[in-house]
């Protein structure tokens, strides 16, 4: 579904992603962990087409299409979704109106007619229930005055409404209380259908206990330096990242010593 090869990207002239490789197949859940500032959110931003980021090398194919060539809105319409680490507040845009507009734009892209008001409401109710998302929040302005946790839940609510093929969750767990974490994870698990894929960026093993990943990757200094199964997350929880940092220094040194 998603195939990233040797992806390099920089922001304000500073290289952040330094040759990143990742393969995600349909139906898989991949977790990405890694220390602060290693480039996790940058990867998410580059994949969704945020302007400030310059791709300087490599490629990212989504279902065979060059993702990096598409506008942000077309990436979303193709089925890429990002649950933001820091969702934006947009006073004056109602959550519901926003969702309806987004849904219909995606449908129009696929050549489908607008959703009837009745169908939209039905879908809204269904997903609200799935995620135990407060109807009062759905009716408010987009994220305006939402608590940190409420914003994160709204991201997942939008995910449920838009039903993307690939969802990237950037630290959705941070800011969620224990109950909310369980509810959100349960919701995400129910949304899994064997065809859609998830990339879950997190610092904590706890989320991965609920949403069990097929693969765990460590992103360090703009590269994936280690990949494994869910046991790797446990190991990281125990040992931290230092042992990997040493490894990575070695590889960097090796690269310098042994020109290819």
């Amino acid at each position, binding site marked *: 579904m998603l195939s990233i090869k040797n992806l390099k990207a920089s922001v304000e002239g500073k290289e952040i992603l330094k040759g990143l490789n990742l393969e995600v197949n349909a139906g898989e859940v991949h977790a990405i962990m890694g220390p602060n500032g290693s480039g996790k959110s940058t990867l998410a931003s580059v994949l*969704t*087409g*945020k*302007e400030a980021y310059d791709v300087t090398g490599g490629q990212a194919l989504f279902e065979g299409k060059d993702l990096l060539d598409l*506008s*942000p*809105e077309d*990436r*979303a*319409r193709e089925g890429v*979704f*990002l649950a*933001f680490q820091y*969702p*934006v507040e*947009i*006073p*004056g*845009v109602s959550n519901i*109106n*926003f969702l309806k*507009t*987004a*849904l219909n*734009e*995606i449908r129009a*892209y696929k050549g489908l007619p607008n959703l009837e008001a009745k169908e939209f409401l039905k879908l809204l109710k269904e997903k609200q229930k799935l995620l135990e998302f407060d109807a009062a929040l759905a009716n408010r*302005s987009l994220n305006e005055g939402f608590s940190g946790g409420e914003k994160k839940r709204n991201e997942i609510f*939008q995910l449920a409404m*838009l039903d993307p093929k690939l969802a990237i969750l950037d630290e959705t767990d941070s800011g969620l209380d224990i109950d909310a974490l369980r509810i959100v994870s349960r919701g995400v698990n129910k949304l899994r259908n064997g065809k859609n894929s998830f990339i879950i960026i997190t610092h904590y093993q706890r989320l991965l206990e609920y949403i069990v990943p097929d693969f765990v990757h460590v992103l360090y200094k703009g590269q994936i330096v280690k990949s494994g199964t869910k046991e790797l997350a446990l190991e990281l929880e125990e040992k931290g990242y230092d042992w990997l940092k040493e490894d990575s220094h070695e590889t960097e040194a090796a690269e310098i010593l042994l020109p290819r």
Partner: protein
Amino acid sequence: MEHRTTQINSTLYDQCIADYEVRSPLFAAEAPEVVAARAQAIEQFKQLGFPSTKVEDWKYTNLVPVLKENFELEQDAEVLTVAEALLAQAKIDLLDCYRIVLVNGKYRADLSEVPAVEGLFLSSLSDAADRPAFKQHFGKYIDLSKFHFAAANTALFRNGLFIDVKRNTVVEKPLHLIHVATAGAPTYFQPRQLFVVGTSASISVIESYVTDGAPVFVNNVAEIVVQENAQMQHFYIQAGDANARYVHHTEVYQQANSQYNNYKASFPGTSLWRNNMNIALDGENVESHLYGLYLAGGHQLVDNHTIVDHRKPHCNSNELYKGVMKDESAGVFNGKIFVRKDAQKTNAFQQNNNMLLGKKAVVDSKPQLEIFADDVKCSHGSTMGQFNPEALFYLKSRGIGDEKARALLVHAFAYDVTEKIPIPEVQSHINALIDQGLK
């Protein structure tokens, strides 16, 4: 002479002066109040002339190009036919209202639905001459020594509308006034209105403006009296084409316990919109709200000058004007709040926020407070901004295209104003005009 630099020499000025001379023998047939007002006004106009940019209040609005176009002063016109399609341009979908049509200022009963409401009187200004409310209020409230165009209008107006809402009369359905301006050759019109909302009466008036592409320069004056405990909801919806120029003066006089709310929305088209909006809060417990939304485009100039004059204690005023400036449009906002010595316990707030979308768009914003009382709460401020790139990206990341995303953000920006519009059909109409104006 020194003051000449504050005036623009133009044939239109000469025409105005000559018109007064020619018509003054005929004025004798009018109400004595009108005759006196005209005589005083022509003297003021001779002093003031048409303002140049040397006049502080006209610093950013240069009338020279307009006056160079050689507009002819309106004459006593025959009754013109008006295409229904033209009136349809101003129609507000689904709104149940009384349609009142004015053509070049002239009230046209034949095109209007005359409201059959007990206590509501509506006629042309010339038919109102012996109504007590007319005699009592006509020409009483505007300081003609300060307002060039109001002086010209008062001296020379030909046509107008009078609305008198009697004591305790509640007019349920809004009146929708459609102002049509049409002419063969470039013409300068000076229509006038007087609305008197009597004690404990209430009314909603919506005013829309249409032109048929004719080059017109309209100098409109409206006097509005909101008597004790009365309420008025007043809407201006301004859209037109580039051949139309408007200078609008609205003078509101409020008595104790009254409420006056003005909602003004203007859109791309008309190349010049100058609005003078003055409100005097001349009684205790008066409430006034001024909401403005200007969406400007092309080379349009939208100039809003407001004065909120707190004369008595315990009054509240709130003013919020929001501007969205596209292309090479120019905006002017000048808001003065006066709180006089007597006006203790005043709450007066004023905000002007602008979104500059065009790289060459400009706004000159000047909020002013002059406070002579000591126990008051007042604030003012103005801001300039652009699209928030984070918000834009957030919307796009959900599949919303660039144009729609920008439109959503403009609606969001305007929302503080549009949400205040108390008639849902008018609100939808204005939201649709925003979408249209953004295209």
